[in-house]
């Protein structure tokens, strides 16, 4: 089980590396998908299954899908994939950064590999994420309203930015 979780962690780093090495967005989104799928598995190893499911559905099924549709509207004529020397250079640079981080931080101390679940192996009565959602709707209703307003504000900001077709902030494609 520990080895599987370490494998998930390595796949996460590879997915993030795929994005950070700056290929064309078509290819970068592959890295995003890999990173989010694998991080869902890693979250489950921590014990927070609800958050993992929410990540899967909202991030992968909502935001990434919208992102892919938006990217398909603005395609490159000559997209740079991972065979391109520029992308390889960025990739090697980030691998170096990760190696330096592992050497300096230590695998377990800083990167928290091989730790137990969030509620210390079942010490609490309710799963922590489900309990958190319950608190969010009862005692934490202030934060709920603030978060709801923040999300509504994103909608208004985006609508204000693109209002006006070609006179808006973002050019009509």
């Amino acid at each position, binding site marked *: 089980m520990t080895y599987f979780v370490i494998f998930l962690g390595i796949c996460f780093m590879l997915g993030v590396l795929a994005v950070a090495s700056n290929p064309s967005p078509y290819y970068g989104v592959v890295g995003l998908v890999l990173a989010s799928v694998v991080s869902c598995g890693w979250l489950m190893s921590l014990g927070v299954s609800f958050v993992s499911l929410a990540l899967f559905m909202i991030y992968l099924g909502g935001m990434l899908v919208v992102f892919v549709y938006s990217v398909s509207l603005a395609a490159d004529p000559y997209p740079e994939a991972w065979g391109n020397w520029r992308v390889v250079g960025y990739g090697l640079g980030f691998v170096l950064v990760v190696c330096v981080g592992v050497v300096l931080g230590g695998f377990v101390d800083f990167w*928290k590999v091989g730790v137990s679940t969030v509620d210390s192996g079942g010490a609490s009565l309710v799963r922590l994420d489900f309990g958190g959602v319950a608190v969010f709707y009862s005692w934490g209703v202030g934060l709920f309203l603030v978060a709801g307003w*923040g999300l509504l504000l994103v909608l208004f900001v985006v609508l*204000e930015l693109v209002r006006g077709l070609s*006179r808006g*902030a973002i050019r009509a494609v």
Partner: protein
Amino acid sequence: MNPHAKLISSMSLIMGTSITISSNHWILAWTGLEINTLAIIPLISKSHHPRAIEAAVKYFLTQSTASALILFSSMSNAWSTGQWDITQLNHPTSCLLLTMAIAIKLGLVPFHFWFPEVLQGSSLTTALLLSTLMKLPPITLLLLTSQSLNPTLLTFLAISSALVGGWMGLNQTQTRKILAFSSISHLGWMIAIIAYNPQLTILTFALYTMMTTAVFLSLAQIKVLKLSTMLISWTKTPMLNATMMLTLLSLAGLPPLTGFMPKWLIIQELTKQEMTPTATIISMLSLLGLFFYLRLAYHSTITLPPNSSNHMKLWRTNKALSTLTAILTATSTSLLPLSPLIITMF
């Protein structure tokens, strides 16, 4: 700009600032910072000029990076200490990350590159909001955690901000960029003293907000965006130009004007903490800023040579000056004798 969108943006700015400065929990502080970032984006890009759009994009990218770093710092602290209290930031990596994140948020050197360009792309009123209101939540977070942060790093950020703010402002002709570098340099002074006497940071921030609001509002009244426009603006409002000279010199920190008060108290506190080289260096570096403030003040009060002295004030006058500008100008030039009272207020 659409009045409804403007109302939503301004209400969200006030809400986001209030949430962050009144929070005890990191997640709530982060939420307020994100709401602030989102709400000011339409205000920056409202003129729909390509420079304004670029300024909005740069602002969004830098502030989002900084917010992500704040979240990472608070989460690593929560992992190792088990609590999310802002004042109890103990893990050393978290403290370092938070210092860097707040430096990016505020525009301290070496993360200052976005600030002049964002200010140049926005209108004068939005630039005022960016320099004053948007600095309040990050400084609040820094004040709450100031005892845990590395004083050497803070002093380095402070001295380099004073250096770059003074030096880079020397070659500018656009008033918004000059005020951007003035803001960077003043932030350097605020950060210099935060580890030793946070009340002086609050005092410096309050006085800086007052003085820079007076300058921004005066500039917005006569719509002066560059030095050449300021040369010929004296005919429109001669009294405003004369008082703007005093307000600019107050920003520069010249006695007997108000702007001298924070610098004086900071130098005194630094000397008490046996940091005399820091005090000397930072006050020498503010001399660089004095040059461009003097140049602005000179341009503000000059009466152009080709015109004779009979060339009087234009007979078509602007609408009456707002009371707020008058009050802020008066306070930003005359508060120095009240220093003992003001020190007790903070």
